């Protein structure tokens, strides 16, 4: 990788970067509380590429949201990158997320009215970087995903696979420690899905990013170094 690209590499030393202890999560649906996660414990070592699979409604996305700092457990502790998320306010969590987490969703990742490079630049608006620096970082990120030649295209002009690649570029532009991906290949055909997974591979091996991926796709799971199964709120 180039020196620029190296700025995106993490140092992986195998220590757990995500520690969840005694996690219970329940929602109030009408009269009955619904327990989504029951007494769950999880440790994710730094630098690993992990997949989480399970039937619909098993709580996969909920678990992902806890790791990403988007949600808080009903009881239990969540510690990510050495920080206790339970102690943080919404404002602090937002700031933390912008620095620590990179997001890839199944669909609607990109803002339709912004070009590819502007979409990638979006997380950097929350930093104090100058306009020129923002542009440079975004370009580099796009180069990494191989879409530098389409940087001024709108999402409408990109294929599904290309859109997801831009989403990946956006997810690394703020140099996060963890990338969370919620069904990143869910809407894609086989060929595009493979492209995406290869990119994630590269991020994991070359750039040493910790990747936590929720997926239905067994082929996607194969790229992961560890596959967990979640069923009825507990890890298998």
């Amino acid at each position: 990788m180039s020196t620029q690209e190296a700025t995106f590499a993490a140092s992986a030393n195998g220590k757990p970067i995500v520690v969840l202890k005694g996690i219970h999560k329940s929602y109030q649906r009408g009269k009955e509380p619904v327990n989504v996660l029951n007494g769950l414990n999880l440790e994710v070592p730094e630098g690993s590429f992990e997949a989480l699979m399970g039937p619909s409604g098993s709580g996969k996305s909920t678990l992902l949201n806890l790791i990403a700092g988007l949600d808080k457990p009903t009881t239990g502790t969540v510690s990510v990158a050495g920080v206790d998320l339970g102690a943080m306010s919404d404002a602090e969590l937002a700031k933390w997320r912008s620095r620590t987490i990179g997001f890839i969703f199944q669909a609607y990742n990109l803002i339709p009215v912004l070009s590819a490079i502007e979409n990638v630049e979006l997380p950097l608006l929350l930093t104090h970087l100058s306009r020129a620096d923002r542009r440079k970082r975004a370009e580099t990120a796009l180069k990494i995903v191989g879409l530098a030649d389409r940087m001024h295209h709108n999402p409408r002009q990109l294929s599904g696979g290309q859109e997801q690649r831009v989403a990946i570029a956006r997810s690394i532009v703020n140099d996060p420690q963890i990338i969370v991906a919620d069904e990143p290949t869910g809407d894609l055909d086989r060929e595009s899905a493979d492209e995406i997974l290869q990119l994630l591979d590269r991020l994991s091996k070359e750039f040493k990013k910790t990747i936590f991926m929720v997926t239905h796709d067994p082929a996607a799971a194969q790229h992961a170094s560890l596959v967990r199964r979640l069923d009825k709120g507990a890890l298998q």
Partner: protein
Amino acid sequence: MNLGVLASRSLVRNRARTVLTALGVAVAVLTFVLLRTVLVSWTASVDAAVQDRIATRHKVTFVMTLPKHYAQDIGKIPGLGPSTYSNWFGAKDPNDENEFFATIAVDPVSFLEVYDEILVTPEDRKRWLENRRGALVGDMLAKKKGWKVGDVITLTGTIYPGDWQFEIAGLYTATRKSVDRSTLWFHWDYLNDALSDSRKDQIGWISTRVRDPSRAADISKAIDTTFDEMEVPTLTMSERAMNSSFLASFSAILTALDVVSMVILGIMTLILGNTIAMGTRERTGEFGIMRAIGFRPRHIAIIVLAEGLIIAALGGGLGLVIAYPFVEQGLGRWLEENMGGFFPFFDIAPETSAMALGLACVLGLFAAILPARRAARLNAIDAIRRIA
């Protein structure tokens, strides 16, 4: 690239809706400007009325007359400048019964002295003064009726019945915009000579200049006190006071127009609010992802508020762009010519434009508040869940 850019690009995305909304705002602003200009123009007579001229008329009712010698007697009151007397004639053009223009009998020399805002060329002035049945006509009235200097016209009297002939001796314009240019003035003597003894030597009102405008109220009282001792009591007021009390009798209409101009702003706000709300409802997913990435609720709110402001400003600007030619070229000129008594000048005041644009922007922000709050409050998970 920043939040503002996001807002404006989002507006471009649904171009038809943005354009329609801007058009709606434009129509509202145009109507608002028209209504306010009507109000401003109508009440302008009060603001423009001079402070240094007072009018003396019968105390009880303007329908009754004063004895002519009052016009000389008034000269005894200290602090007064030149003075003149007039009678409302109230004639009509027999060819057009429904048309209205003012016809007034005056003493020409003192009249021009007291009303020095009336501009007459020296030739026209001479011609008028020398011709007993001469008439001095406003240029707008002359243009409308097709009258030229030298024409002999016949008018039907109402208060003083019969057919009266006049010769157009000259045209007048004015130094100030607010002066009505559709009046016909003629010699008082011409009228008086034709009257029977019972109606002779009566004047309608006296107009006098005061040397010190700040003393106008005191001097008016002094005049009324003096005439109170004589056969007919008087009421003296400054021109400004007179105009403002004339307007008071229309206070209900003015209030109604005020209310109506607020209603149009209400309609405009509804259109804006509706459009913004529709736009934000469609973008919950987008906003959700931005929240996930780390944007705060206030960032989302800023985007929505900015959209409201931008459409409002665009529509407001468009409305003004349409309003100016519409009023300056079309409506304004028509009103000045045909209803010059009410609207001697009909122009859009800069304050009105600024007010319209300012209100549009404020209401654009206001209309966006509820949608902005709703969009900002939605937490990331709910927003994203809606798209999955």
